[in-house]
């Protein structure tokens, strides 16, 4: 692979170098991560973007900024080990409450997941404010509706979530294998039937229906009916 990459690009090393400079410039200048396709569209035709990205990754491996892949796109980030120095640059990020963080984790690992399922896992009813504040971060989204009685809304994570936590894909979630192995990703008991994995694939699952066009009406309805919602009793009904 490495040899073939070199072979591919050996034809004209100066073209490859120029390609590296172009990608470097684009990634430095962009406020958002860029996909391989976006980058490739600005390159000479005979230069392979994958080779360039590999080369840049290597070039920057030991530097103060590194090339990382997040949400399937590429971007430069300050090196992790320097975070102690840059803490001063940190903008005042809103600190998520413990409940919100836990809810976010449940959504990330169990997506697509309904509010009732979140509550079953956490053993506590979810305050509307918790989901609202998560929606506000832009890290979670409404996916669709579960095809079960009541047609509850399903939640999932967004690309912004992956970008924020520096994840390439949702499969890279830390500790995912342990959770999977223990059968904890299967919301329904008993464990061991099937081992679902979280998926933020935008296409709906078999048991998901699309959200109505008039989502706002539905959300308003939901909000209005929320008071009557029975509190989770901490045990599966």
């Amino acid at each position, binding site marked *: 692979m490495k040899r073939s990459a070199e072979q591919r690009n050996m034809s004209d090393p100066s073209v490859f170098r120029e390609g590296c400079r172009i990608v470097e410039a684009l990634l430095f200048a962009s406020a958002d991560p860029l996909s391989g396709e976006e980058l490739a569209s600005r390159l000479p035709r005979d230069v392979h973007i994958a080779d360039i990205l590999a080369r840049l990754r290597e070039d920057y491996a030991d530097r103060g900024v590194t090339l990382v892949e997040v949400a399937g796109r590429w971007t430069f980030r300050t090196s992790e080990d320097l*975070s102690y120095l840059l803490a001063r640059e940190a903008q005042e990020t809103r600190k998520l409450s413990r409940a919100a963080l836990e809810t976010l984790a449940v959504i990330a690992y169990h997506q697509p997941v309904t509010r009732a399922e979140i509550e079953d*896992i956490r053993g506590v009813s979810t305050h509307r404010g918790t989901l609202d504040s998560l929606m506000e971060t832009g890290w979670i989204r409404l996916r669709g509706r579960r095809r079960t009685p009541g047609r509850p809304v399903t939640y999932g994570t967004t690309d912004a979530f992956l970008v924020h936590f520096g994840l390439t894909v949702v499969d890279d979630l*830390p500790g995912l294998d342990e959770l999977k192995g223990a059968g904890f990703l299967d919301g329904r008991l008993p464990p061991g039937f099937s081992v679902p994995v979280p998926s933020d694939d935008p296409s709906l699952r078999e048991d998901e229906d699309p959200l109505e066009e008039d989502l706002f009406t539905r959300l308003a309805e939901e909000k209005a009916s929320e008071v009557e919602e029975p509190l989770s*009793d901490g045990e599966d009904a």
Partner: protein
Amino acid sequence: MRKELAFEDPVVAVDRGEAEPALVVDVDGFAGPLDLLLELARRQKVDLHKISVLALAEQYLGFIEAARSFRLELAADYLVMAAWLAYLKSRLLLPEPAKGDEPPAEELAQRLAFRLRRLEAVREAAKKLYDRPQLGRDVFGRGAPEPVRIDRKRDWDASLYDLLKAYAEQRQTKALSRVSFAKRFVWSLAEARDALDRLVGGGLDWTVLDDYLMAFVVDPAQRATVRASAFSATLEMVREGLIDLRQDGAFTPIFVRPRRPDIEEGASSA
């Protein structure tokens, strides 16, 4: 939980001394009954897989009892859990009924243990997630991204056809809008009288007035003025006793003939 639920001694469970058997719990610190159960389970200091659900249920019920003795109001979900655990406890202590509709008590206990393990695992995952280098906290993107400048290039859409059409149409419209007032043709009463005088002189019998007049009409557009002037003239001539007029009904042709003394009676009878 609410503020009024706080125990007098707000010591968090983890601060508890190793040997201290007393249940000192800051209710405020718990996120629901499952969380409380998980904390109680941790105190059994055994692997969650080997946890004694019975002991756990007893501890939980003891906690609820203690809370009640302090006359604390407990949120409904804590009480529901208490009721369920009391039921589970009795099921676990009693011999299993031979055949029941309900799942065996052991299975219920295992489900609870599973939920506790799952909650703990999710919490660990949440912590791992939180400990990841986060953007804006641990790692940073370019502080001064250079925006892509968009040069808007306007491409005007106009074809030669559009151009010629626009030119020709406006020139033509303008050219034709230079109207000159054509002189309006009016057949005067005098002209009409002259024409009708010739009719009288001709000595014809009943004649359709319009047919006769048409001989004098050059342009169909003049028909109205010819008819109007001629009719006025005939009325004048009737008054003078020169002609007779006759019409058999509304919109039917008007007949005209010179008046002659010899047929006067016939005419008056008509």
